[in-house]
């Protein structure tokens, strides 16, 4: 799994992932988000554009990221999920909690 971080002008951190977000990569993603929050970025967008596969463990990493950002007064949002990712979000009902945005820039556009 590839990970890469950039910061938007308004202080929002964008974590772009590539490859499989599954039980193998979940712990690393969890750590990355915790690291961003610890570094002062509590508003995080996870860009899922490059993620070709997401499983329950991967979702688990996003949820624990959501927890750490919310506790720091921010939020975690997801952007640009592909077909399989959308399907998993729908099947698990997770789209009720994590709403997919089209692009990372849109995610926090309206706060």
């Amino acid at each position, binding site marked *: 799994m590839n990970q890469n971080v950039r910061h938007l002008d308004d202080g929002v951190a964008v974590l772009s992932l590539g490859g499989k977000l599954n*039980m*193998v990569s*979940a*712990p690393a993603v*969890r750590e990355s988000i915790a690291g961003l929050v610890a570094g002062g970025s509590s508003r995080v967008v996870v860009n899922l554009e490059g993620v070709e596969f997401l*499983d*329950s*463990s991967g*979702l*688990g990493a996003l*949820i*624990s990221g*959501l*927890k750490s950002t*919310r*506790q720091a007064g921010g*939020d975690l949002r997801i952007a640009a999920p592909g077909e399989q990712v959308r399907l998993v979000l729908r099947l*698990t*009902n*997770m*789209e*009720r*909690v*994590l*709403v997919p945005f089209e692009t990372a820039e849109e995610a926090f556009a309206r*706060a």
Partner: protein
Amino acid sequence: MAGTIVRTRAAVRLERRHRERDERRLLLVRVVAVLTVVLGLNYIGWRWLFSLNWDAAWIAIPLVVAETYSLIDVTLFALTVWRARRRTQAPVAPAGLTVDVFVTTYDEPVELVLDTVEAAKRITYPHLTWILDDGDRPELRRAAERAGVGYVTRGQDWHDRPRHAKAGNLNNAMMSTEGEFILILDADQVPEPEILDRTLGWFTDPRVALVQTPQEFRNVPARDPLGSDAPLFYGPIQQGKDGWNAAFFCGSNAILRREALMHLAIARYVAQVERNVHRALKQAHRVLTRALARDNGDDPLLDAALAALEHAVRETRRALAQGEPVGLCTFRLQRAVEEIAEEMVSVQLRELAADLADLGEVEAAQFAGSPPSETLHQLATGEASPLAAFAKVQALIRSIDVDLGGEAQPLMPLATISVTEDMATAMRLHAAGWKSVYHHETLAWGLAPEDLRTMMRQRLRWAQGTVQVMLRENPLVQRGLTLAQRLMYTATMWSYLSGFATVVYFLAPALFLTVGILPVDAGAVEFLLRFLPFLAVNRLLFLVASRGIPTRRGRQYSVALFPVWIRATRTAIGNVVFKRPLDFVVTPKTRQLGGVPWRLIFWQCAAAAVLLLASVVGVVRILLGVAEPVGTLVNLVWVGVDLAALAVLVPAIRYRGFGTEKGAIS
């Protein structure tokens, strides 16, 4: 080549012969099962309708209720063994699966944990071994490093939050590991090297979430004084449950599919978040409506704030009802509430500053501009605010976040509603449509308690946990379970309620023998004609279903531990209904020292004394010619059976632990 083929054919023939024998035996079990239920109904129906002694209803009714309890118990057993088949071998374990082996420990001696860890390292299928140390012991951490295995302990998040015992320990470790499959071993369960090779093949069926293997012990002598072995459970009962796709998860020596557990966790997380949010919003709405109704318009500022809050809450509820995502709605609502609070306070402060300025106070100028954000925050959130309703709603809305802040981690793959997390988790897996497998081959050897006190504490814990699940997530009303699965879970829970029936079974004969009160209003012959056939097939059912394994010890203990079952039910109800602690204790794996623990077995001694005394009185009454001889004889036999069951405690008290017996002889 030819040799291989010949052998294979022979194996196939042998397998077929075994199958045919199994099927014949199963047919016999079914015939006896039907007979048991029919003759049981014949007896109990007659007892309810034609033989209740209404003059002694206070004992007649409890007795017939206890008997009905027992009939339901044996009916559920009959249903269980109806499908008790031996499985064939598992498919060959596919190569390349990733497996984590978790050795869970709390306070067991380091040596004991390391024995298990060394054995876990010798498991032949490629895997990673982890020690899950809930005791957070530095020496165990060092030992793990030396042994070259992983070491997991609870992090900061668990501080001051519910720890959820073993379930919490496992859930914590699941977040930092990544294997597709998880083998769970209690600290004392030393695995065989082939444990994974023999079991992983079952997971080639993608719907299988759990494979449970038996729990057997390496420190139990043949006569098993503490009734540790459970050959009926880890045999016909689990095989029968397996037949209905309801094989239980028993906490250790089991392999689980991570994806299935994570799936459960996420489904529950979403459901819980939605439930929390709806509940909090409803409550906020109620508080606000009440506050607005009571408002007398004295304070226009407060009115405006309350109205703004009410609007925000109403908008959020409307958005949720229209299917807008919970995540965004709660985030927006929280922002809105913060803004309303800050707006209100800054207006207040400006007014205050103006008042002060009128009074000519110099410092007022400091306040006039923008108030320091810290003061603002304090006033908006702290007790400084007099606006109780406002503060309450604000607190409510803060509490409804999607992070389930009251828990250490939002995802709890293993159920945390019970001290027996295993049963609750398996039931949720079954309800979610997953399959389970009972693999009847001992692949790990554990340590049983070696003294009565520890054993009783362990049984208490199992019983408490089971009753907790029965009260919190009753299988009879769980969506997603098949009828048979519901009944399989109910069967186990039902059996833990036996303590109350046992008390009645002690009291009824004692009352007859001493004062001649007969709860059954019928002639002795008629009674025996109805009762004895039922009793006989009942015993026969256990005999054919158990295929020759000894079950007597288990039946004796289910009677002799009646105070434990009663206490378990009482404390579990206290815990679930009245939120009282269970006084939960971990089962020590090492022997506890001490003399005869009379307090432990007070009620059993009392029952034995009453029964003995009643027998003496009964005999005397016959000799005096005041008692009815056939009835007295029946009751004396009954008392004899009760006493024989209680007597199982005598060798249990005298037992001095494994390995002490040979020394005693020489």
